[in-house]
């Protein structure tokens, strides 16, 4: 206690030095704690599933045809569930939320997002409904009573949390559904689901076709089975199924088994890892700064320490005294740091993309506070132990006899501070280099040619709902009429519809096949997969897709017209290199006649390649008129004149939909630009966060260098005065101080560049069109740090060159 009290008193007397040390630690501890809270919420906190470590996510991959994370077909799902020995249980769900149902409320129709899931879904995840029960075998039988499990939020929001709802029926989309259970409050899987219905494939094609993948699987590993073992076993099973699909053909598919947590966290894991590394480095720089201050302090207190030794203090007591002082710094740093952590976490959540699972629930709770305290103690030890041991190493007799100048302890302190400056420079260069790579990657990603123009375009889901418009031709007519109205509206230049919006579902889309005239049927399952998009006339101009050749779809390209298609440039180049694609023919999804023959579509247009499934993901685009496709359209895209605002477009869209069907909800209204911005969210977040850390690292390192060089100039005042008295010029002294100050920085920069080259490989998966060893970025990082170091060295160096020899030597 006495040592702590003395520590506090010394800190008060040390004033600016203490403030600097406390601020540096508070910064490190604050940022570190905020990031720990985020990592805790996203990566460490258990998912709301029983024994989540045994849960895996299963998709397929077909490298030969350029398909990753390919969904699984229904027959393949049944086979895997039956045959896989490494899986105890398997559940299936479509790869997108597919069971949106409309609830009529007093304030208008409300769309509830739903997931169709196989009956074992809740059991596989080990989730028991908070009220009622989960699905059982039989619930997913064709013709069975319609049932659903409601999400807690939807139950509270739309049904007033009425527990009597369980067992009752509610009307959704014109059908009666019995509510059999309410999910636990923390359960939201797949993300966005507000209700779950049993998976009952409606079309025979979905039940039987092995070539039509549309399911994602979640499975529980059998006791003792590992992810690797399951992956190996499922590879064999999937290969066998692929052979069945192509009648013994050459399709080369394999399984992709991923721990469910990894799948859910996605690239948020590596991104948080990157930020954690940046924070750790900033904290180390802060610790180096504090240690550097303490070393200087230790030297200044040398006399006090030797006196204490002479008065009977053991080395352990002295180390304890010095550590207590550091602990006081750390305790104050923790208090300030936790306040800073609150602010940093709020900023982090605000900056982060919305789809980082669990991040929004991150708080500075007891665990985080405990982490902050642990971090503070670790920092105190890290920053304080070395200076304490170094300061107490001296035999008392040397100190007592006033041998301060040129003594071994002073030499040690100088060396220690040089090493610390070198370390700071090294850490800072690593942060700068990593941040440089991430920022450059983001800039590259932002500068990507999307193929379409996101400005002035609004998108929305208009359905229409099947229960209101049961026949496919009714739904197509709905869109036809809606688009006609929109195009006639003032301020609208183009309007069209499609099935899936760009960039919204990540890599998910319709993986289609194609067949060229003369190719055998089996080639359809061997040719590269195309990005198949059913669209209405007007969709391409509404998206602002640059036409390269030919024409857009028109009224004549209906169900009864000649089959037509529009291709992206990349597909055109691949299929007809050096030829005009217009007039070429290919068969695709939906063009197989009942007699088994193929009907070929004529290519009538070529457009720019669009980035639909990710900003870094260019596919082989194939557009077909919705009237000639087995798939419906759901989303409308409206392009306005420059002056047309999104609000005005949305009002016109809602009015047009209401005029056609007042009960049809218009949901997911979003400017196309917002979808692009969301897709850039992860990269932008990483870029802003690491950029911020880089600036911080640079400032802290510069501060540290400034402190050390300033201290060194003060210590060497006499020597510099002697040099000046002996004839050295001001420039000589300036150069001497700059050289001495910059030498450890240069060594640190070299070491930092080497470390950055190694660490950058770990974040390679986050980089886009930027090499992990980008020499320009590494040079920039080194240059920035050296420039900051020169700026930090210059004021003390100039002060040194202005030393008055007469005054300095007289003072001695």
């Amino acid at each position, binding site marked *: 206690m006495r040592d702590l009290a003395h520590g506090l008193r010394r800190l008060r*007397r040390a004033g600016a030095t203490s403030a600097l040390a406390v601020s540096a630690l508070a910064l490190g501890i604050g940022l570190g704690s905020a990031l720990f809270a985020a990592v805790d919420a996203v990566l460490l906190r258990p998912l709301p599933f029983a024994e989540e470590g045994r849960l895996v996510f299963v998709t397929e991959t077909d490298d030969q045809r350029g398909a990753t994370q390919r969904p699984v077909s229904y027959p393949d799902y049944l086979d895997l569930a039956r045959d896989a020995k490494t899986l105890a249980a398997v559940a299936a769900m479509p790869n997108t939320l597919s069971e949106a149902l409309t609830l009529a409320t007093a304030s208008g129709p409300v769309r509830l997002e739903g997931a169709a899931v196989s009956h074992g879904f809740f059991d596989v995840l080990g989730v028991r409904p908070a009220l009622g029960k989960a699905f059982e075998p039989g619930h997913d039988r064709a013709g069975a009573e319609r049932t659903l499990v409601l999400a807690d939020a939807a139950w509270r929001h739309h049904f007033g949390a009425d527990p009597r709802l369980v067992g009752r029926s509610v009307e959704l989309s014109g059908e009666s559904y019995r509510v059999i259970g309410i999910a636990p409050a923390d359960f939201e899987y797949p993300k966005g689901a507000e209700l779950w219905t049993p998976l009952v494939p409606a079309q025979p094609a979905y039940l039987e076709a092995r070539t039509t993948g549309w399911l994602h699987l979640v499975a529980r590993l059998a006791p003792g089975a590992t992810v690797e073992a399951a992956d190996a076993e499922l590879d064999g099973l999937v290969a066998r199924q692929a052979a069945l699909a192509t009648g013994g053909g050459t399709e080369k598919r394999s399984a992709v088994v991923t721990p469910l947590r990894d799948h859910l966290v996605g690239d948020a894991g590596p991104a948080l890892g990157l930020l954690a590394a940046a924070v750790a480095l900033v904290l180390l720089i802060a610790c180096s700064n504090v240690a550097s201050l303490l070393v200087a302090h230790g030297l200044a207190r040398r006399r*006090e320490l030797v006196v*204490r030794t*002479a008065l*009977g203090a*053991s080395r352990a007591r002295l180390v304890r005294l010095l550590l207590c002082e550091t602990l006081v710094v750390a305790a104050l740093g923790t208090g300030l740091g936790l306040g800073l952590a609150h602010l940093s976490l709020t900023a982090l959540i605000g900056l982060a993309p919305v789809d980082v699972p669990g991040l929004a629930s991150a708080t500075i709770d007891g665990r985080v506070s405990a982490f902050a305290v642990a971090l503070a103690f670790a920092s105190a030890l890290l920053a304080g132990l070395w200076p304490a041991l170094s300061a107490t190493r001296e*035999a008392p*007799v040397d100190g*007592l006899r006033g041998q301060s100048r040129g003594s071994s302890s002073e030499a040690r302190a100088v060396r220690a501070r040089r090493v610390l400056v070198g370390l700071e420079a090294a850490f800072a260069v690593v942060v700068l280099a990593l941040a440089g790579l991430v920022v450059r990657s983001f800039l590259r990603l932002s500068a990507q040619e999307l193929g379409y123009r996101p400005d002035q375009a609004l998108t929305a889901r208009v359905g229409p709902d099947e229960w209101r418009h049961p026949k496919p031709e009714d739904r197509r007519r709905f869109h036809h009429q809606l688009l006609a109205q929109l195009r006639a509206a003032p301020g609208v230049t183009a309007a069209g519809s499609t099935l899936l919006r760009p960039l919204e579902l990540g890599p998910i889309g319709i993986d289609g096949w194609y067949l060229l005239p003369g190719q055998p049927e089996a080639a359809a399952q061997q040719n590269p997969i195309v990005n198949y998009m059913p669209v209405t006339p007007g969709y391409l101009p509404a998206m602002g897709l640059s036409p390269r050749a030919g024409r857009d779809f028109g009224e004549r390209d209906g169900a009864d017209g000649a089959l037509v298609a529009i291709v992206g440039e990349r597909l055109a180049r691949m299929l007809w290199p050096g030829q005009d694609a217009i007039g070429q023919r290919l068969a695709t999804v939906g063009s197989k006649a009942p007699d088994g023959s193929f009907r070929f579509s004529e290519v009538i247009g070529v457009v720019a390649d669009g980035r639909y499934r990710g900003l870094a993901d260019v596919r082989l685009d194939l557009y077909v008129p919705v009237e000639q496709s087995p798939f419906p359209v759901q989303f409308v895209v409206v392009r306005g004149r420059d002056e047309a605002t999104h609000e005005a477009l949305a009002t016109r869209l809602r009015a047009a939909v209401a005029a056609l069907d007042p009960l049809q909800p218009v949901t997911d209204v979003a400017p196309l630009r917002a979808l692009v911005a969301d897709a850039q969210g992860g990269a932008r977040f990483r870029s802003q966060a690491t950029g911020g850390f880089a600036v911080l690292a640079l400032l802290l390192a510069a501060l540290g260098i400034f402190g050390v060089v300033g201290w060194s100039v003060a210590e060497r005042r006499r020597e510099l005065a002697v040099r000046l008295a002996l004839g050295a010029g001001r420039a000589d002294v300036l150069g001497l101080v700059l050289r001495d100050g910059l030498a450890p920085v240069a060594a640190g920069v070299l070491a930092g560049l080497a470390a950055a080259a190694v660490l950058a490989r770990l974040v390679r998966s986050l980089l886009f069109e930027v090499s992990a060893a980008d020499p320009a970025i590494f040079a920039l990082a080194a240059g920035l740090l050296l420039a900051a170091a020169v700026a930090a060295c210059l004021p003390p160096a100039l002060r040194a060159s202005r030393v008055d020899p007469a005054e300095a030597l007289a003072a001695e």
Partner: protein
Amino acid sequence: MISLRNVEKSYDLGGGKVYVLRRISLDIKEGDFVSIMGPSGAGKSTLLHILGLHDSAWTGEFDFVGAPVHKLGRKERLDLQRKHVGFVFQSYHLLDDLTVYENIEVPLTYRDVKKSERQAIVADVLDRFQIVGKKDLYPNQLSGGQQQLVGIARALVASPKVILADEPTGNLHSDQGREIMELFKKLNDEGTTIVQVTHSETNASYGSRVIRLKDGWMA
């Protein structure tokens, strides 16, 4: 009480060994007041710090209050020092951040004396040195003489058998120096053994014996 036999101290420099003390043999009895004198560089302070157990890098034999120092480890030497030695410095070396009271208390804290006991001892010493009114002041609020008075009080607080003083009046003007030397004399009369390093024949005259050093040798 103190017995040195052939004690030598040297430094290894580039060109070979440089001796600071050569073959020092001396005896100091309990109750002695010894002055070590000699020109600058003679080895006076070095000898004093060896006697104060601050320095262990020497050769020879050194018995202190019956204990063979030359055979003791670091911890035993520290224990011996804590028990029997009080040290007074030329530059006082009070701890700047501590009050007069706390400075005097420091040696007791390193000897694990209980708090209530410490309070009684420090109160007694403050009273004895008539500095009760200054107990809450910091060193920079005291004159040089007052600081040295506190330094001596601090050296005495743990009731050592011997007080070693390194030029205790070196930084004081003559009146203050005389007061300090009279205090040493009084302490010696009360039974405390005193060994001082001094350049001043006047100061040496307060003692009972003078040891002269020149170039590391006893003259």
